[in-house]
């Protein structure tokens, strides 16, 4: 088979298509976005009508995927690590209901926080839910494991987590696909008609089943082709290398001559026998894992009496992603770094694009806020979060999707009036609507700015669930139509916009201001697509 050059995320997408998946559900989030985008653009996925539209948020995505699994078909739900917090309610309970059609929950973690608010490790969630976790170490494994994951899910009737991190997600390599693409599952309902009814009586029964399944999950890890024990002659140290940690270890032994016993872990729960072997035959064990010291902590024990080294004792950095040189140092090898960065190199932080509509909003907002005193703008997650940086320094919070509105309400409850929420269109429909309802029900004196650029821009201009619906949603939730202000955001309207913001800040109730102008990047892409379609039509004619 001809190899294809695929990003780790694309390898997962292709693996899912080739494994007969019938639907992917997701909300965009770096570094997970391209899984769904790849499926949206795949010819075969389109021919098979594999579902790939974006969901409103990660929770709706997870629930919809579970519904597809209930109906017997293979499905994947994808999100970034913090998205799993949003979907956690369904995720934890899906471990209890179990799966019918194969279900893979693909979570892309972002250690070092390249594009995130934290670096939480989703393996902790997988362990919390007590389901099997797959953690590929390279693109080929990512592809192969996807099919394997569906089989595992169906064999044990459980959702399976696929955990990847930024480096694998966004690194390309040659991937050899399988020769034959699997057929999709026929629709078939669960044999046990009560399986998905988590009433306490049934849930207790299902939970006991999950507990008794743990042994089987462990046995599967023991037999897994993805967990490997390599013997070594020097038993002064054993290395447990999880996921990408294995690559950074082997990078330092280019001829494959690592003298220590090595346990490569890419499937959890941990393979107990192999773990016992490495800990008993080696004087000391080093754990290389991307993210939290999950395995290390487990081995070391609360009192730290076991001879285990890694992130907890400072052998490796406690935070941030692993690197080959960090691992080399941990192995006692000398690292000859290149030259230092000269002093004249200036930081080049990300910034709002030239011509972006958020500029106009922040210019007006800053001037009005100066009249009331600073520290009252609660913001959210999207390109507009860059308003925290110079030149604007316009926002005071960014915590989680939708928190701008509810934090503004809480601050207003505490007496900070006016309190302003600054949120984007897609973030609003993701998790802002319910918070707005809370504010409406108490007529809280907050001013919500939904800076509408008609796109999910930070992740590359995906279709926003909010498009064309914002005014109707706000009015439907109960915002007084007199206090819903919609206008096209343009620099020339500066004074006019300031007047609107000022008036709504003075209003002692809920106002929603919607400055609207399409994202400049999205606009360019849309025009390109239009032009290409026109050319295609002309070529046909």
């Amino acid at each position: 088979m001809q190899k294809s050059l695929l990003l780790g995320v694309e390898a997962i997408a292709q693996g899912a298509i080739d494994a007969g998946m019938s639907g992917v559900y997701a909300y965009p989030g770096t570094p997970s976005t391209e899984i769904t985008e790849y499926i949206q653009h795949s010819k075969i996925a389109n021919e098979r009508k594999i579902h790939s539209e974006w969901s409103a948020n990660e929770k709706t995505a997870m629930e919809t995927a579970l519904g597809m699994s209930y109906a017997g078909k293979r499905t994947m739900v994808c999100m970034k690590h913090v998205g799993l917090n949003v979907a956690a309610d369904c995720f934890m309970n899906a471990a209890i209901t179990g799966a019918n059609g194969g279900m893979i929950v693909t979570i892309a973690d972002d250690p070092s926080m390249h594009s995130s608010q934290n670096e939480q490790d989703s393996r902790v969630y997988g362990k919390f839910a007590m389901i099997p976790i797959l953690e590929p170490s390279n693109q080929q494994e990512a592809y192969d494991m996807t099919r394997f994951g569906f089989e595992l899910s169906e064999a044990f009737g459980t959702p399976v987590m696929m955990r990847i991190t930024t480096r694998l997600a966004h690194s390309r390599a040659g991937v050899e696909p399988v020769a034959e693409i699997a057929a999709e599952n026929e629709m078939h309902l669960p044999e046990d008609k009560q399986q998905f009814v988590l009433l306490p009586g049934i849930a207790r029964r299902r939970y006991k089943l999950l507990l008794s399944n743990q042994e089987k999950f462990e046995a599967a890890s023991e037999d897994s082709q993805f967990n490997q024990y390599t013997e070594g002659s020097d038993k002064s140290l054993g290395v447990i290398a999880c996921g990408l940690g294995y690559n950074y270890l082997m990078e330092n032994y280019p001829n494959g001559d690592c003298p220590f016993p090595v346990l490569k872990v890419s499937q959890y729960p941990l393979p107990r026998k192999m773990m016992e072997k490495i800990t008993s035959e080696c004087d000391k064990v080093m754990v290389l894992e991307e993210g939290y010291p999950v395995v290390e902590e487990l081995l070391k024990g609360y009192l730290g009496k076991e001879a285990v080294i890694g992130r907890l004792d400072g052998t490796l950095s406690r935070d941030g992603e692993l690197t080959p040189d960090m691992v080399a140092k941990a192995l006692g090898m000398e690292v000859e770094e290149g030259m230092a960065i000269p002093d004249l190199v200036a930081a080049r932080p990300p910034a709002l694009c030239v011509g972006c509509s958020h500029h106009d909003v922040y210019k007006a907002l800053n001037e009005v806020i100066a009249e009331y005193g600073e520290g009252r703008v609660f913001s959210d997650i999207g390109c507009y979060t860059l308003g925290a940086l110079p030149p604007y320094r316009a926002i005071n919070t960014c915590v989680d999707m939708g928190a701008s509105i509810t934090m503004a309400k809480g601050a207003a409850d505490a007496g900070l009036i006016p309190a302003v929420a600054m949120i984007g269109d897609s973030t609003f429909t993701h998790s802002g609507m319910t918070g707005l309802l809370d504010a409406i029900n108490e007529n809280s004196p907050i001013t919500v700015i939904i800076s509408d650029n008609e796109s999910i821009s930070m992740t590359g201009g995906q279709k926003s669930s909010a498009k064309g619906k914002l005014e109707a949603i706000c009015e439907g939730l109960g915002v007084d139509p007199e206090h819903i202000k919609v206008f096209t955001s343009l620099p020339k309207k500066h004074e006019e916009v300031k007047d609107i913001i000022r008036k709504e800040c003075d209003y002692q109730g809920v106002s929603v201001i919607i400055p609207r102008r399409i994202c400049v990047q999205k606009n360019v892409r849309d025009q390109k697509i239009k032009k290409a379609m026109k050319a295609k039509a002309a070529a046909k004619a």
Partner: protein
Amino acid sequence: MKTDMVIAGVGGQGILSIAAALGSAALDNNLHMKQAETHGMSQRGGDVQSFMRISDKPIYSDLIPKGGADIILSVEPMEALRYLPYLKKGGYVVANSSPFINIPDYPNEDELVKTIEALPNYVLIDADKIAMEVTGSTRAFNFVMLGAASPFIDVPFEYLEEGIRKIFGKKGEDVVQMNIDALHAGRKFSEENK
């Protein structure tokens, strides 16, 4: 046969097309390759980099170790210097001399040039100007840069041409030729000025 290269630039400058051409060439010739890149927030006008690794042996890490890069190819002069800790002793810095200024504290350009010229091995090239002279537009400046780095890349030069054909084939022969011309112009400059 093994080359580790850091490709550097600013979000939106299109460094990924360089990596795509090289990656495609490597794959078609049965070489191993890995190429890690930046997506997401940093792409908004921030500094971005791609780690490109090609070898005839299996490659493990997606990241190039510090002190391990044979080449830093930067489509912007200041960004070339940001990755110096990754450069191997004896490695080459190939930098475009046209600055991309989107920050208020961008360094003095003369000092920047002096700093690059003080490096042991470098090629400083005005890729925008050469692209304009050779192809009539600056669009192909990325491939002038790849051409300029090509003498230090341990991959046959024809492979790079093949890579360009592969990734631009759909856009027509004119686009392919423009980028191949740019590639040759970059290589010629480098051969004469390295």
